[in-house]
């Protein structure tokens, strides 16, 4: 698959949030305000891309040659957890401004299933390095896009008159469902 096809596919057609259900927890948890969702989106883009590249090399250079592919899940989640911690420390030392902006989102990212999901999917789909990078960037842009749209919708929902039992979480799910219907309109684009 060409890089453009991968990008369009992951951002619009197979959006990780609306079509593949990855990263629903932060999607529902952080999408209250547009600026916090943008911060989360940037942090996710950074970690997903870095983690996918590292996991790609670990799979190709360590796990595959040694026949340890069954350890994939354990190794990947440890790499991601260590990486998130490492990124946090580097940012704290080198760019405190960026750290204070992203700080609160970084620890949350370890348990964001987008990171592990994309890393595993790159291996399952047998992508090469360039395709891996394109897939990770596309996935994170798609995630950020979903987060931003949702935040916009939720800011309006605050003022709406919602039936009592549907207040809060259920109405968010219903709006996500309608948005997901809109995204099915992109099907067949790639």
């Amino acid at each position, binding site marked *: 698959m060409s890089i453009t096809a991968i990008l369009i596919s992951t951002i619009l057609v197979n959006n990780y949030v*609306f*079509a*593949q*259900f*990855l*990263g*629903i*927890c932060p999607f*529902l948890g952080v999408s209250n305000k547009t600026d916090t969702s943008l911060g989360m989106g940037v942090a996710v883009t950074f970690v997903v891309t870095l983690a996918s590249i590292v996991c790609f090399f670990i799979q190709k250079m360590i796990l595959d040659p040694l026949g340890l592919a*069954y*350890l*994939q*899940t*354990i190794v990947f*989640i*440890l790499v991601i*957890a260590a990486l998130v911690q490492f990124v946090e420390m580097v940012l704290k030392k080198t760019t405190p401004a960026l750290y204070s902006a992203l700080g609160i989102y970084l620890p949350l990212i*370890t*348990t*964001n*299933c987008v990171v*592990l*999901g994309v890393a*595993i*999917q790159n291996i*399952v789909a047998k992508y090469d390095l360039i395709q891996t990078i394109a897939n990770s960037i596309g996935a994170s842009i798609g995630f950020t896009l979903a987060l931003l749209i949702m935040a916009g919708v939720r800011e309006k929902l605050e003022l709406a008159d919602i*039936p*009592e*039992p*549907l207040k809060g*979480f*259920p*109405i*968010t*799910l*219903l709006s*996500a*469902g*309608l948005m*997901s*219907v809109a995204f*099915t309109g992109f099907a067949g684009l790639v």
Partner: protein
Amino acid sequence: MKYSKILKDGVINNNPILVQFIGMCSALAVTTSVKNALAMSAAVIFVLVCSNIIISLIKGITPDEIRIPIFIVVIATFVTIVQMFLQAFSKPIYDSLGIFLPLIVVNCIILGRAEAFAYKNSVFSSFVDGVGQGLGYTFALFVVSSIREIIGNGSFFGISLFGESFQPISIFIQPPGAFIILGLFVGVFNLIKSKKAVRE
């Protein structure tokens, strides 16, 4: 704490999906058919119960600062066991659950229960808590997947219900249906809960 109360908390009062809203990714993704939902639930119950027991057993010797990585390794080990077991004995289920099987590692229910319950309570209570939360997860998944499969595919557990002439509403089997059905289910659950609270 009484064991029956721990169980009831897990299934109803503190249901992971309907009340705590954690572990949503897999709940939305695998509810396309009842069979998938039950297979996923069984995998989650196994991992949840085993990791709760182990984490409760080792809580005395776990250094507090690095407990989260330790939890993750314990959980990932059991997930790998489930993966290998399903791959060997039930390839179709392994294929249909796909990426959501390894993603049990980052399912917030399991890490959440490890941190909030197993790390602070006795081994047997942790076991009961694992069963309770697992059954709560199963209950939510079963209801959502039944509705989705019946409306979206006209079948239940793979058995066709309405014959040839039935036109299924396929949007319910597609991703949007998951959000909408779960949203409405949580709404109905809240409604029943508030009605019950008023009566009491």
